[in-house]
């Protein structure tokens, strides 16, 4: 697997898209720090960018990369290498490269301007979202041999997690507003990795106290060690389930 990993990283790091991604992140973040007031508002803006751009980039680039590597994967499969190791090598190679791009593009500006606990959480959440959405991208790609269908599924997933999910939660909240919803909402958060990431970072900011009763509850829960552990466990589950699922499909897939 280490050998496969090496060649995937070599391949990905040379693609212009990853370099462009790094430069884009770097430009956006330094721009925000340079123009912004440098307080928690800047961090919130950064958070929005990370929550929007990182999942989209990981899932789109992940699917494109998989479909572009299909022939290479086929070449590897005809060699004496285990199938699982091929897919794991592809997955780790891609997600580590994207994570490295994020760490450079986002981490360097943070290091230059505003290094504190919240921004480090932001960086960590970004890295985890990279791993999660690359795994989702691989799941979408191994399920379908049709490139258009795979990319479509991937985009639908992103659309669901980034946009539709919020609508569904709001709809639930307003339809059941007569009932105590704090516990169910805590659970609902766990169903969306982007939401988990958002809550994790927002609660590190002082402004979270302004979020009312639910905010206070969140603060009480997610501010505690157990709450943080809960979020990270769910984020890891969000990474493992699609990854293991795609490994399962891949080990029986016909090329």
């Amino acid at each position: 697997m280490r050998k496969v990993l090496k060649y995937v990283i070599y391949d990905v790091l040379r693609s212009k898209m990853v370099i462009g991604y790094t430069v884009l992140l770097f430009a956006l973040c330094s721009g925000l720090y340079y123009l912004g007031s440098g307080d928690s508002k800047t961090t919130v803006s950064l958070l929005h960018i990370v929550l929007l751009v990182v999942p989209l980039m990981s899932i789109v680039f992940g699917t494109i990369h998989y479909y572009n590597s299909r022939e290479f994967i086929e070449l590897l499969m005809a060699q004496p290498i285990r199938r699982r190791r091929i897919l794991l090598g592809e997955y780790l190679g891609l997600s580590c490269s994207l994570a490295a791009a994020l760490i450079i593009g986002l981490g360097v500006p943070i290091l230059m301007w505003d290094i504190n606990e919240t921004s480090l959480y932001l960086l960590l959440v970004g890295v985890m979202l990279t791993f999660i959405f690359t795994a989702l991208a691989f799941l979408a790609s191994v399920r379908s041999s049709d490139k258009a269908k795979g990319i479509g599924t991937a985009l639908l997933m992103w659309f669901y997690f980034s946009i539709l999910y919020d609508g569904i939660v709001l709809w639930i909240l307003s339809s059941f507003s007569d009932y105590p919803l704090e516990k169910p909402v805590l659970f609902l958060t766990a169903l969306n990795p982007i939401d988990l990431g958002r809550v994790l970072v927002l609660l590190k900011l002082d402004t979270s106290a302004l979020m009312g009763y639910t905010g206070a509850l969140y603060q009480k829960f997610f501010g505690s060690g157990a709450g943080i552990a809960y979020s990270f466990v769910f984020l890891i589950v969000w990474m493992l389930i699609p990854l293991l699922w795609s490994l399962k499909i891949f080990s029986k897939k016909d090329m």
Partner: protein
Amino acid sequence: MIRIENLEKSFGKLAVLKNVSLSFSAGEVVALIGPNGSGKTTLIKSILGLVIPDAGKISLDGQNVLQGWEYRSQIGYMPQIGRYPEQMKIRQVFEMMKDLRSSTSQLDEELISNFGLENLMEKRMGTLSGGTRQKVSAALAFLFKPKLYILDEPTAGLDPVASEHLKNKILKQKAQRSLTLVTSHNMSEVEELADRIVFLVDGVVKFNLSIAEILNGTGESRLGKALAKRMEGEVYA
């Protein structure tokens, strides 16, 4: 060397291989022929483990290969269309394959020099023509001196000189007791290379005969014509 027993494979509702049983032994060159979509590539890919059969057994030297992976170190595979990471140079592709197969035995670089690939080593795969890629694929298939060569339409994109080199190489390896499975639509090439022909139609082995046997029954001297006669016999009999 290879035994295939009652192999079945379908893609959705389409049955691609129907109860295929074949065996091949060392020192043979066997041509798999048949119309497009008859299951040749699926059969080859089943042996390689690229396609997982629904039922049946494949064994290599008595060892069941389904779900295995180590056995692939004994196979050199040349795909119909070999595609490689575009950014890699030819040299890097060769180095990568050596690295991935961690081969300790001596390498067979004859085709690299016959194809004149040494002078192209610094070119990137993305800039190569289809034929040059085929040369790289062929050189890779022969590089590790495997016991079994699987060549899927090997000469389809090659120039005549390179084709000759490849054919000579196939015959040379045959003399060294390796087994070669080759698919082709080019009958004169099949006639030149193969000892035996396996003819597949719609996933069924229609016949599995030596070239002499095919010619004998029909009174033709050219394989293409003899096959055409046989096929008509098969279809309309």
